[in-house]
């Protein structure tokens, strides 16, 4: 039972890290707290649903969503985040929250308010036995996707030239640019990757959670808790925080149902009092 709960915690933690890593990257490069990130997740899930329904291929849906969300992310950066980065934080919050509402309205206009569900790919259906209990293969695959995304992002940031430019620009964009790096292009690419990750999270979550126009707002709150606990702009901190929040949510749902939804916020409160800069408290 404990093993299954741990695995369920890892499943939700994996979804959170895919979401939160996008938020971290965007904040790290543009200093923009992106409230629209949840709506990119929702949009990804709905587009994935339609592509999957039309082509009968969840894998193709994942690819199409990845591509489309990256384009949307790049356009968001070019026409919104780039302009917002030096503005008052209140302006940033208002604009990105406004975008969240716009995207929710677009989804409701196209797909309506009904809930949908997306089937898992055939190869990932069924379950395996763990500790004498059945555990869905699809949920295990979400953990694998979370690990893969984390590993790829880690390697990209730490072992490639562009990753080095991203880390440099997240700390000192001016000095990085004066070395000849087009930091606007770097930021645009990073926001595109962040948006694609949100879309991937949406498609990955779709067979596991149902599709609803409010699904973006629900996961956005937990993702922000992860980013704040981890330290704004810290990728490693967000990873640790996502795993902790994932476990808190699943164990809380079983052992402390009345206060389960409060536990992540209590943890955030404690971390903010103990270390206001978060667990890691550093840039990307």
């Amino acid at each position: 039972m404990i093993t299954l709960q741990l695995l369920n915690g890892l499943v939700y933690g994996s979804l959170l890290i895919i979401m939160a890593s996008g938020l971290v990257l965007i904040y790290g490069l543009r200093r923009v707290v992106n409230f629209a990130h949840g709506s990119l997740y929702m949009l990804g899930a709905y587009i994935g649903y339609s592509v999957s329904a039309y082509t009968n291929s969840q894998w193709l849906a994942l690819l199409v969503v990845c591509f489309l969300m990256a384009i949307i992310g790049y356009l968001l950066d070019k026409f919104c985040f780039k302009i917002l980065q030096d503005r008052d934080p209140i302006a940033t919050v208002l604009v990105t929250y406004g975008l969240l509402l716009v995207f929710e309205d677009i989804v409701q206009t196209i797909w309506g308010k009904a809930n949908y569900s997306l089937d898992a790919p055939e190869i990932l259906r069924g379950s395996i036995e763990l500790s004498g209990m059945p555990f869905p293969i699809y949920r295990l695959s979400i953990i694998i996707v979370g690990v893969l995304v984390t590993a790829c992002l880690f390697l990209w940031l730490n072992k490639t030239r562009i990753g080095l430019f991203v880390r440099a620009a997240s700390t000192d964009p001016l000095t990085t640019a004066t070395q000849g790096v087009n930091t606007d292009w770097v930021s645009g690419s990073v926001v595109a990757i962040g948006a694609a990750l949100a879309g991937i999270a949406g498609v990955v979550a779709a067979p596991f959670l149902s599709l609803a126009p409010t699904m973006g707002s629900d996961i956005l709150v937990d993702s922000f808790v992860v980013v704040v606990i981890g330290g704004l702009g810290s990728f490693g901190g967000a990873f640790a925080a996502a795993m902790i929040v994932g476990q808190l949510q699943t164990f809380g749902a079983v052992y402390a149902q009345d206060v389960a939804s409060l536990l992540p916020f209590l943890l955030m409160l404690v971390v903010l009092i103990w270390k206001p800069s978060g667990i890691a408290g550093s840039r990307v």
Partner: protein
Amino acid sequence: MSTVLELKELNAHYGDAHILHGINLTIDKGESVGLIGRNGVGKTTVVNAILGVATVRRGEIFISGKKLERIKHYSAARQGVSVVPQGRMIIPNLTIEENLILGSAVQRGGKWNLDEVYALFPILKERSATPGTALSGGQQQMLAIGRALMANPDLLILDEPSEGLAPVIVDQLAEIFVEVKNSGTSVLLIEQNLSLIVRVVGKFNVMAKGLIVDRGVVSGSDVRELHKHIMI
């Protein structure tokens, strides 16, 4: 002789503040030029105008004969001008080696690479995996110079490199600047330390109130002679 940097009637602003009032300056290939003047006369603004940090509202900047249009922060580096900025601006979350690799972002071919920079500054190689900001002030200056050289620039701009450094370190830096100059790289040295100017550059320009008010040749000048120019 070809020109690596030419500033024509350069007028630069920070917001509404008009800082440079028509700077004319030419640096030829292989030449080393000094820019001297008191605090606040606009020396660093000349660099900032080239880097697109200060706004150029009138006048022109030419790098290797090509006019800089719609100046971006990355434009100068891509055309062969590297800057060692005032305050060094080492990226704190990068190691020494990563700071140096950042300098090679423009990927211009030439003499300078990691091995050459490490040969010039062995201490950087010894501590290559430590964060750049863990170094002493003098070592950070070496890192900033190494990072600028990694771009294999045609022109190296040094903005107050001796600031806050012990005289013995400044002596070491002077030797390195001469070595860089002798390797064929043009140098624009912005300094208030006149003994460093005398040792490194061939020509000097004196700035006051956003203008170049005097020019001369350093050869034969001693520090007291230069000091008279600054007092103008």
